[in-house]
């Protein structure tokens, strides 16, 4: 496999018994897992091509325990990998052989819901969907809805800045989180943001969200909850090709409509999904759009009419509007089942996650076909069309020697293409280990060093989730090196890392 992790520190592994004893003194009972058999379920996250049993697993239940674990590991120079539900598609929670895996799954309580101020305070192990379930009785919901929402935890969502099909209208996790309690690697507990908007000082909350577990361990999250829209309706539109579908998307937005969701599927994805769930997708089209609008019924009726008109103007060949909730859910069933559906037609698949400027879509799809031929592997495309977030699914068979490498090479080529046309390596899955080595395609050395200096401000010894996000581990002393003027540093009393 092409992605290599840092060489494990043998001295750390040699003192494993000492570490286990220290962890057991902090987290009693079943909360420390050390047997080889018991560690196996923890050896990978959603990026299952990569597996590594952790040195040991620690499952704290209180913030004090998290703080004590981190403080001890910091003092002893032991690395820590935080983990939520382990659904990351980029390997963000991949264990290391010489690191403690810190599982946050026992932080399962919803601490408070304030309907008047429209916020919920929850522990990080609460699942994304559980927040909505806790508040829907009063007509509210939590907006970001990553496809893994039944399993993924809000702590993991904060680490990854998770999105979902509705984020064009309602934003990513970062736009829906008001505050966190965070434990730094040295054990210090800080609160960033709060139950109000726009705190004084630097927006540290903003940089913690999406930091992929490299800056601190989240022990509490305050999220915004929103009133559930009165109704939602969807329209299913087929086009001869993706170019017309893309033009339709652009015109919808140009006419001032921001749909709640706007998804595109290409022909291979349509066929795989229809074969799997039989929801009546048209099979003779080159691209399918699902456009959903939500709000008062009067608004939905108006917008569905407008969208149907725009689709017609852009060459739509089929168009169906959902007449009831069951039909709307059926439209989505195929899209939501696209990944497992592709799993039925191919032994394995690799899900990519680049974002492009939407206007470059036809060119990107054409060049992706060329790449598909070049690498000898098929590809199916699902696409958050409103915000330009592509999910090419690369089809391969891990049992065929060389195919995983070919799939990864194909994936890398697709992401390079995304950056080349003005886009990015990852729209919502995170860099993790998967896209780590491609970071220099998007960022210069100076850009990456500046990001790593932020890491140094939070974790100067680089003990928290090392080997993720950044292709080169650089010591903070090297990054902090600066010119010395007349033999004197500014602020000589300040500690330097």
């Amino acid at each position, binding site marked *: 496999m092409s992605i290599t992790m840092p060489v494990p520190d043998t001295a750390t592994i040699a003192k494993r018994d000492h570490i286990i004893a220290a962890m057991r003194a902090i987290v009693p009972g079943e909360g420390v897992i050390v047997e080889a058999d018991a560690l196996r379920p923890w050896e990978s996250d959603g990026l299952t091509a990569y597996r590594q049993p952790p040195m040991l697993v620690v499952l704290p239940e209180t913030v004090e325990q998290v703080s004590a674990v981190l403080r001890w590991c910091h003092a002893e120079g032991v690395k820590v990998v935080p983990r939520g539900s382990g659904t990351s598609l980029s390997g963000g929670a991949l264990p290391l052989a010489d690191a403690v895996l810190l599982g946050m799954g026992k932080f399962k309580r919803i601490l408070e819901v304030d309907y008047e101020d429209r916020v919920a305070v929850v522990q990080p192990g609460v699942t994304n969907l559980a927040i909505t379930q806790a508040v829907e009785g009063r007509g509210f919901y939590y907006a970001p809805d990553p496809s893994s929402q039944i399993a993924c935890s809000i702590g993991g969502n904060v680490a990854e800045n998770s999105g979902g099909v509705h984020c064009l209208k309602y934003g990513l996790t970062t736009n829906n989180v008001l505050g966190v309690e965070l434990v730094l690697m040295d054990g210090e507990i800080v609160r960033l943001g709060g139950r109000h*908007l726009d705190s004084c000082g630097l927006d540290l909350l903003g940089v913690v969200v999406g930091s992929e577990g490299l800056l601190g361990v989240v022990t509490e999250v305050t999220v915004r909850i929103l009133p559930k829209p009165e109704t939602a309706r969807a329209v299913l539109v087929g086009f001869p090709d993706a170019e017309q579908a893309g033009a339709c998307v652009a015109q919808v937005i140009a006419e001032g409509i921001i749909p709640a969701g706007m998804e595109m599927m290409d022909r291979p994805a349509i066929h795989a999904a229809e074969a799997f769930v039989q929801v009546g997708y048209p099979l003779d089209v080159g691209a399918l759009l699902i456009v959903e609008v939500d709000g008062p019924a009067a608004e939905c009726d108006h917008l569905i009419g407008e969208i149907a008109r725009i689709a017609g103007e852009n060459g739509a060949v089929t168009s169906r509007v959902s007449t009831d909730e069951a039909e709307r859910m059926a439209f989505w069933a195929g899209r939501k089942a696209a990944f497992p559906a592709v799993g039925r037609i191919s032994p394995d698949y690799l899900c990519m996650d680049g974002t492009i400027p939407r206007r470059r879509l036809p060119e990107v799809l054409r060049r992706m076909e060329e790449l598909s031929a070049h690498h000898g592997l098929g590809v199916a495309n699902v696409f958050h069309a409103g915000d330009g977030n592509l999910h090419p699914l690369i089809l391969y068979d891990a049992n065929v020697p060389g195919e995983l490498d070919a799939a990864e090479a194909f994936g890398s080529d697709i992401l390079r293409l995304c950056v080349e046309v003005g886009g990015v390596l990852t729209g919502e899955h995170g860099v993790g280990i998967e896209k780590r080595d491609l970071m220099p395609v998007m960022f210069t050395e100076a850009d990456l060093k500046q990001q790593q200096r932020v890491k140094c401000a939070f974790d100067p010894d680089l003990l928290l989730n090392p080997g993720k996000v950044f292709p080169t581990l650089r010591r903070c002393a090297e990054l902090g090196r600066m010119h010395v003027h007349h033999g004197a540093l500014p602020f000589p009393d300040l500690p330097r890392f």
Partner: protein
Amino acid sequence: MLEPRDALDLAQIIADAGANGAKLELRGGGTKADFGAPREAEVVSLAALSGVVDYDPAELVLTVRPGTPLAEVQALVAAEGQMLAFEPHGAPGATIGGTVAAAVAGSRRVTAGSARDHLLGFTAVSGRGESFVAGAKVVKNVTGYDLPKLMAGSWGRLGAMTELTLKVLPAPRCTVTLMAEGLTPVAAHALMAAALGSNADVSAAAHLARGITLLRVAGFAPSVDYRCNALPGLLAAHCRLSRLEETEAAALWREAMTGSALAGAVRWRVHLPPRKAPELVARFGNQWAMDWGGGQVWIASDDAGTAVREAAAALGGEAVLMQAPPDMRARVPAFQPRAPGVMALESRVRRAFDPMGVFATTRFREDAHADQLPA
């Protein structure tokens, strides 16, 4: 005042300052120069770094240079039927760079987010004199740390932005303001909470001390009509609502979002849990204005003390000193001090961008090292 012509010029100025131990204050239009403590620093005007780099309305993305006047940016996107959804506002001459660096947001902030939520990417020169890029020019991106969040609201203390990429959104085709009169702060807050918590998609809610409560309903005409007809029924238990004429409404919203009509030499802006807003204003006479459903409160007076800050802290909020005579600004930090651990972390993050303290003027008295510098 230094006036770099371009980004290269700017990088040289910052590198030189670092080498000479000089302090630089970055300035856009200078409309917020009286914010923070009086200080001595060489002013670097970014006014010449102006103009639109790229704007593709269908992509919802706009890239501009920092010195571009805010009014020009707003006119540009308005001509395409779009808007900056965080509803930035500023005095004549305010620039887009200064607006984002100061995290200015208007009434729509409560539902649409602030500058932080709409700054997608930037190019900047750090305190090291190095140019770097963060974020991107697409609306959805999680590649690397979200440094745009840090840069928005950083008041020029991390680096000098040379390009900003902002998310733009369609402007509502139709906007109606509904007004209630004669409500107490407690009743007004209950009304705003009910409205923002309803599914009638109320995009802003404000309350002025003279008993005027405003609700904004925006969108496509059929939807706005429907919701404006539904809201009085939904909120009947609270009050009677009437439609306000647009010009009059605009002036009232401006009062709510800027506190501009308040009398007093000292002006505070408090951010707090909205449910605490009535309790806060009850202590400070009638020179106040609530916006964001109560989440932002302007308070004005001639009192040079810090009673507002203490009250805000007691209610779980934070008070920013927005306007005061120089002697008070020299004494009272603009920002409410945070917990020591957070202050220390902020200081380390600032040094990650500005190790020589080039941008560490005495403007922000809560800097960990500000009190070590000569006053």
